[in-house]
């Protein structure tokens, strides 16, 4: 527990949207593919420091990273063709980020207003007549059962479901594929670089090579996350159906 608290403090961000929004706002940009592409490298660099977070948390950062990689690749290599699904992922990330932005702003207002003007409920009445009124539902056995059921229904730590792991693995594959595609596109569209305007050909190639190196680091980060899966677990709420069983 203690090490988790420490890590969260070091990380300083509650999830990928928080980080991403912060990076965009720092540059005073609006949320769109251009701004997302501009902050991608910083986001990926930040992800390198994530080791030690719970895998479930890492995977939420990785899922967003995958989409950012697509956006960045497209901005580096306009000739790179994205699939419809990939285009959809990009649009979806932008929409979710805007939604998150809305609620982050509201959260700031709530921070200001919370506890400022409180509506108080009355204090407990001392004069309430106490008459002993038991209930036939109270017995030695029923009380023991209630206590036991309650203890059972407290959230347990359970192993991360396999789906989560699979999702992360498929992102790793996706990054591999993306890396290949970029390298191929780089070979194929070489003439594109000769028409460099403000930046020289060498600079552009350097940018892309640097980006590929970054991809490799992210890939390694994901592998770390997967390796941690077996040793880590997450908190999960008891499901409703089992609660109901205890009702009966």
């Amino acid at each position: 527990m203690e090490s988790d608290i420490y890590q969260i403090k070091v990380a300083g961000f509650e999830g990928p949207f928080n980080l991403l929004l912060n990076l965009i706002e720092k540059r005073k940009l609006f949320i769109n593919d251009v701004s997302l592409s501009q902050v991608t490298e910083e986001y990926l660099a930040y992800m390198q420091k994530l080791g030690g977070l719970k895998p479930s948390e890492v995977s939420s950062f990785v899922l967003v990273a995958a989409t950012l990689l697509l956006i960045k690749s497209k901005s580096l290599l306009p000739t790179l063709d994205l699939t419809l699904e990939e285009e959809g992922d990009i649009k979806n990330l932008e929409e979710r980020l805007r939604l998150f932005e809305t609620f982050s702003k509201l959260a700031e207002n709530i921070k200001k207003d919370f506890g400022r003007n409180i509506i108080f409920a009355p204090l407990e009445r001392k004069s309430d007549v106490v008459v002993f009124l038991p209930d036939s539902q109270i017995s030695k056995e029923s009380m023991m059962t209630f206590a036991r059921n309650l203890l059972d229904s407290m959230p347990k730590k359970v192993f991360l479901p396999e789906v989560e792991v699979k999702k992360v693995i498929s992102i790793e594959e996706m990054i591999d594929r993306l890396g290949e595609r970029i390298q191929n596109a780089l070979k194929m569209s070489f003439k594109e670089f000769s028409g460099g305007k403000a930046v020289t050909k060498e600079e552009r190639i350097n940018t892309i090579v640097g980006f590929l190196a970054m991809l490799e680091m992210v890939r390694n980060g994901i592998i770390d996350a997967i390796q941690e899966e077996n040793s880590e677990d997450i908190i999960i709420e008891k499901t409703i159906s089992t609660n109901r069983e205890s009702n009966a």
Partner: protein
Amino acid sequence: MHNLESKIEAILFFKSEPVSLKKLGEVLKVSPGEVLSAISNLKTSLENRGIVLIENNNEFALGTSPDLSSFIEELQKEELNRDLSKASLETLSIILYKNGVSRSEIDYIRGVNSSFTLRALSIRGLIEKTIDPKDSRRYIYKPSFELLSYMGVKSVEELPDYFEVNASVEVAAKGLEDLSAVESGENSNVDSSTK
């Protein structure tokens, strides 16, 4: 002769905890419509007074006027906890402005798993969970009376820009349906733990 309005006032005063529309109708032997119209009169009578009527999810309670907050706080011995973490603030803003939201929707908007934060907020009494009438396998989280009290509003509608925000996020929530990945992720969680 005491009318419905004063009877409701007496019940809420006597109970000193939230009373549902249904319960009021039963006790007073009148229709929900009659209760609501009497409640609306009671609200008017309480304007500019020391007591206010709070309304939340068809439940009603009396409390002290938010304008007198600092004054009443001096009479209060219990320590008030005004600290909220960033995660809690984000989660509360979603629950307040959507006024009834599932965990998967909260996770979708925040981009992280919120189960820990939701439990902590529920323990503090700031949110309430009920079984989703549309899907009995999941919960719906709503603001509690305690939360509205701390925000100093008599109902969620009094929150700044409530209608505007609530309408805009309704639209955005439609996009959620497309995102089956998150949903199925949660459902499989549920499945695996019931086995």
